[in-house]
Structure formats: C-alpha cells, structure tokens
C-alpha cells in the first residue's frame, strides 16, 4: 500500500503540466501556408503556435463569418479549468497522503480516477460544443457563404480528434503535451489502484 500511495501522490503532480503546456493543438496547413498556422489550447486560454498565428487565423476566418478566437476573459472555462485542475491535484495528493498513512483505502484512488475521467469527458464535451458553435454559428453578413453539395450551410467545425479537410486547409487536431502528461498521471493513478488492490489481495491470501 505504501508503493501504491506514492504513485497516488506522484500521479496528480503530472496534472501540473497543464499549467505550462497546451492541452490541445490545432494546426491549419495548406500548400500556400508552408509554415502552418496553429493554435495551442491551454487550460487558461488559446495561444499562438507561432507569433501572430491567432491574428492571422482570425483574418482568414472573417471571410466565412466566424467569430474571433475568444480571449481568456471571454470564456468562463478558462478561469474555471485551472481551479478544477488545481482542486483535483490537491484532492489527489490528500488521498495519496492519507493512503500512505493508511487512513483511506485504495478504493479512493479509483474514486479519484473516476471523478477525473468524468470531468475529462465533460471537458471534451464542452470543448466540442464550443467548436460546433464556433464553426457553425456564423455571421449572417459573412462575405463568403459556402454550402455542402446537398445545399446545407458548410460547417467549419475543426475535428475534435484527428484530421479533416476544410476548404483548402488540412486541419489537424490532437492532444498536446499537457494532455499527454495528464494521461500519464491518470495511468499512474490507475496503476496505484491496481497495486493497492494487489497488495490487499496478497495480504488476504497470507492471512489464513
């Protein structure tokens, strides 16, 4: 249980990476943009990959009537996410430390993992909803109005995960360093749970 608790203490610390590294990355490349434009989505706001990328993405998007990319103060998520992540780190540490002193059982580790997973899924859902709104809720006075072959208005929603072709752009949307660190941290916690469960089991076997 000690080893498992140590993992439970280390695991949440990986989430701190989200304060330094982007959670998600979206790149827009085209033959005439040999250096693709890109945005890094951090928990506290959207930033350029290369300087002025956001300004230039907004410049392109205004033709099709997309809103400007939100500033941190324009979305509640960017102030809530850092608090939620911070809370989860502290909660995880507390559980780990209590586990170390055998005040709580390994089940709590799973509890943390499940809570984090739910929050993660909610976060993804929110992110996707934002992209749907951003890519379909277009200015009716937009300069260019494009429709699909079936006549429905074209959506410019970037893919949640992976690659999509949008007009002449290749859009790639993938988790970035922060997300991978979070993933690693969560795997450690999963490992902590299994380790805790195994030691518990072996102790049960030893008892009789």
């Amino acid at each position, binding site marked *: 249980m000690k080893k498992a608790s140590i993992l439970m203490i280390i695991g949440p610390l990986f989430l701190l990476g989200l304060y330094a590294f982007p959670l998600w990355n979206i790149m827009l490349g085209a033959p005439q943009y*040999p250096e693709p434009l890109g945005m890094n989505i951090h928990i506290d706001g959207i930033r350029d990959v290369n*300087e*002025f990328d956001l*300004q*230039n993405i907004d*410049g392109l998007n205004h*033709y099709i009537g997309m809103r400007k990319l939100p500033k941190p103060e324009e979305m509640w998520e960017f102030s809530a996410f850092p608090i939620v992540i911070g809370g989860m780190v502290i909660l995880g540490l507390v559980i780990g430390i209590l586990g170390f002193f055998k005040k709580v059982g390994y089940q709590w580790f799973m509890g943390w993992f499940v809570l984090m997973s739910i929050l993660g899924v909610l976060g993804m859902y929110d992110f996707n909803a934002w992209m749907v709104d951003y890519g379909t809720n277009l200015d009716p006075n937009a*300069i*260019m109005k494009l429709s699909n072959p079936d006549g429905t208005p074209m959506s410019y929603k970037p893919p949640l995960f992976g690659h999509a072709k949008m007009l002449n752009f290749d859009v790639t949307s993938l988790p970035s360093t922060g997300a991978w660190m979070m993933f690693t941290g969560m795997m450690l916690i999963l490992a902590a749970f299994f380790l805790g469960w195994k030691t518990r089991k072996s102790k049960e076997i030893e008892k009789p």
Partner: protein
Amino acid sequence: MKKYKHYVFALLGVSLLLAGCGNQNGESSSNGALSSSAAEKVYVAPGEQDEYYAFLSGGYSGNLTVYGLPSGRMFKEIPVFSQFPTSGYGYSEETKPMLNTSFGFVPWDDAHHPDISQTNGELDGRWVFINGNNTPRIARISLSTFETEEIIEVPNSAGNHSSSFITENTEYVVAGTRFSVPVPQRDMPINEYKGNFKGALSFISVAPDNGRLNLEFQLLMPGFNYDLSHPGRGKSHGWFFFTTYNTEEANSLMEVNSSQNDKDFIAAINWKKIEEYVKNGGGTKIPANYAHNVYDDHNHTGTSTMKKEVLTVDPTKVPGAVFFLPTPKSPHGCDVDPTGQYIIGNGKLSADLTVHSFDKMIAAIEGEKFDGEAYGIPILKFEDVLAGTVKSGGLGPLHTEFDGKGNAYTTFFISSEVVKWKLDTWEVIDRKPTFYSVGHIMIPGGNSRKPFGKYAVAMNKITKDRYLPTGPEMEHSAQIYDISGEKMELIYDFPTHGEPHYAAGCPAELLAPKSKKIYRLTDNKHEFATISPNDARVERNGKEVHIYMSTIRSHFTPDNIEGIKVGDKVYFHITNHEQDFDVPHGFSIIGQNTSELLVMPGQTKTSIWEPKKVGVWPFYCTDFCSALHQEMQGYVRVSPANSDIELSWSLGE
C-alpha cells in the same frame, strides 16, 4: 537541390545546345551530355531555394538588385539612391530625408560597387554597402530588413568610384574620388588643374554595434584619378590599395592625354598609420557641408543632418604611410587575393596582368628603394615590387576575383572573356568567352579571405543577340559559370536591371534565417502611428490636415472622410496592422503628385496629397492583399476652399 525530371533537362539541354551552336568555340557540338547537365545545374525546382544570394549594383538605376544563384532569379530591387515608386521610397515623408544632400534633394545616383560586411576577413552578412558615384555618397543597407538604413555624403569628392570597399573587420568603408577637383571647391581656370586639384580618399568608420557611419578622415592625394580599390587582408590588413590613372594630370581629351604614361600607379595606403596619426591629433579640420541621413526602423523614419567639418590629412605629413607602386598602363581593377599577399593591377589598355607582392613591397619600403617621388610621395621600383605577370593574350583586363583554391578569374573587356589563372605560377588554366564586353566578375565571398568558389557571375555591358530583342535597348546580361572544376563552364544567362558594375554574394544560409518577416506593431515608435484602429482620426492644423489611418485586410479605417478643402495639404499617416509575413498594404489617391505607398506589416508611412479640385475622390489599396482587395477603398470629400464643412470621418456607417 534534389533530383529532377531528366527528360526536361534533356529537352532544355538540347535547346541550349542549339542556341549555343556556332558561338561557343565549337565545343558544344560534341558535348551533349555536358549541356544537359548545365540546365540541371541552374534549375531550382518550384519550392526549392537557391544556394546563394547575389547583390548586383544597379548602376544608373541607382539601386541594388537581389538575385538567387544559380537560378539567376531576381528577388528584389532595393531602392538606395533613386526614388522608387514601387514602394514609395524617396516619395514618402519618412524616406525623403534619405536622398538629401548638400545639393538638396538628389533622387538618383549611379550605384557601382556593393560590398558585404566582414569579420576577420569573412563575410558576416550584417550589412551591404554601396557607393553613389555621381553625387558622392555611401549607403549602408541592412541585411535583415533589406532596406537602406543610412546614406552619408562624401565632401571634397567627385565621381565616388573607388568605393565602397571595406576593411576586413568592417572598420572602414572607403570612398575614393575618381575625379580630382579643387579642395575646397572654388572658381578657378580648368587648365590650371595640374598641381592644384586634389584627390580625396575618404575613410568612413562603421560602428560595430549598429553600423553608424562617420567620416573619420580624408587623405588629400595628388590630382590623379582614383579608379578602384581594395583593402589588404590577412598579412596586408591595415593597408588599402587604389589604382590610379591620369597621373599625367591632363584636363582635356582625356582618352588621349591621360594615356601617355607607360605606367600609372597603385597607391598603397597604410591606413592604420594614418589612423594613429589622426588619433594623436594630426590632420587639419576644414569647413565642409555634407549630409548624413539615417533611417531608423523603430520609428520608420529617416532624418537628415548636415555636417559642417571634415578632417583632412596631407599624406606627406605621415611618413611611411603612402607609397606608389608603378603599374602599366591605366590600371582599372585593383584586387587583393584571399591571403593578402598579391595585389593585382589590371592595365585596361594592356594585354597583361601585373601582380605586385605585398612582402616585396614591404621589403622595398624597408630598404628605401625608391624610384623618385610624386608630390612628396615615394615611388617604389616596379621590379622590386613585381610578383609576376600573367601573359594572357587577352585584351583589356579589368577585374579579378578568387575561388579560394589558389586560382584567380580575370575579366577582359575588349576580348570579352573570362580567364582563369593560377596564383604563384601565373599560368593561364582556362578561358571562356562572355557575351559581350564583360565588366566585373563576382564569386560569392571572392572579395574576402574565404571565397565560396562554386559559381562565378560575369556582368556584361552589352546583350545583343542573347535574348529576344526589345527595341534599341536591352537590359544588360549576366552569365553564370560553374567554376567547381578545372575548366569553367557557362551554365546560364540572365538579364540584370540597370547597369550592374560590381556584385557581392554570400551563402543563402547566412542571410535567410535572419531576414525580417514583419515589423512588430507593438514596437512601432513612429511619431504618427495609429496603433489601434480606435485611434484613427483626422486633425486640422491651419491648412494642414493629418489623417491617422490604419489598414487591415480588407479595409482602411476610416474609409469616408469629409471636411477637406481645396488648397489643403493632406498628410495620410498610414499604419499597416497586419502581422503576417509578406502582407503589405498599398495606398494611393487620385491626383497625387508623388507615388503610392507600400506599407509593410507593422509599419507606418506618410504620403502627402494636395487636392486641387472639388469633388469626392477615391483612394485604394495598391497591393493585392486578399480576396476582398478590390473592395479595399475609400472616399475623401473635397469642398471649396471657403467651405465651412466640419471635418468628419467614419467606417461602416
């Protein structure tokens, strides 16, 4: 470069071969394979980039052109001494001061010899310098913005020809006068030239951190014509060499009268000695009046200051600093090899090249083996300083560059050819014709201690028959030779703008990574910048109206302006809010008596418009900026001079 489609080359090669038949020494007819590789050698496929930058002087265009090697593609024309309507250089309020001189606004010059800055004798890619020949000036161009940053006028000089060459740590850029003139200028009979006119050799220092120029001293030499020059390097660092003609000091029918002496001179100047003399208080300050123009890319503005004094040095007052090396006959080019040992003087009226030895020169000076003097300056004995003679059999040798492998390449104007010869042995290795009448030749770094001896570019004066005719005048032609092998191979012809004299080249990797892509709007310190579109406004001050305008794809802010009157002087201060590489916006308005402006991302430029007619007049963006470029326009309402319409401006109302 990558491998390409060989069929294309074969076709190109055949067409080259056909075009070349009959005028390439008959070699090409049996060299089908060679010809096809020539096309391959210069082909830079779409998306690929050239290996070298080449900076060709624009001669009477007054500018500097940037080409790629080996493709021969022209990338840019950098305005230097001439007004340039393409960008508004010399028309915008910010750049007009750059063309100020003691003669007032001089919007043209004859740009001759570019030279790239060096550190320890190797190209460092910070700046390129070029001279204005007609109204003597030296310009410094930034190699990160590729814009002219500074121009200094050279007083007491006329025909600023033997420049702008730099010493091996860019300590000085020299400006030697081609024409000797009275110093100071005065009203006197022309036929009293002899003994009265002076040749000023100016040493302009370059500040190592920001490149600022300062005319440190002028050496007042005898009244010869100072034709070309080169700094010593390596062991001869500290010396500068100038070819002279008209040592006869003739003042009329020069083509005959200045060609009488069998030998003219190369003037060898120990500038370190003169620098020391000056630092110890030597020299005489005399009144002068010359412009010093500086452009600052933080406030995007040029300023012109008039300087009132210059320090002159009499060479006879600094013993051991100046010597004459006799050189046959009317030498033109003056080139120093990469080791600094050999000084090559090419007699433009002779068939041979004369090569002087620096070591022998020093020995002769130490042994005081003089052969008389001229105006108190010792003349060394020809035989004592001669390292060797290249017996070439060509006619009219002009200029020499080096490949860093012990070979030299000399152009022959009259016999139109490039001759490759070996240093030390003086034997001719190869010769190839040029088409036609070649002046300078350039090997990237060929003017430094570290040449990149892969290509040589010959700059020809005459182009007839090389391209489709374009009336009586054609652009001049340059030719690229592959010099990587023992024999030279002509691989490409390309047209050049103006009359290129000299050129300077360097590896692309030295410049491309530090080339500026935008000006940061947040760093824009222009006095009249509009940093936010919310600050866009129009202000009246008497008859002057200042319009503070911003641009972004695809509109001006504001785009409707009313309250302007006939007789007003309207200043458009335009700030480009783009922060994207290569997205300038243009501005022009009907009836403007200057030119349009091309405003780079993050930059501010000012243009004056003096409306003469009542009406509603459009302005528009001249640089195709976006899909809505055509809509990037606006109107100015011009009312009668006595009208009382209030100034107003708007966007989207």
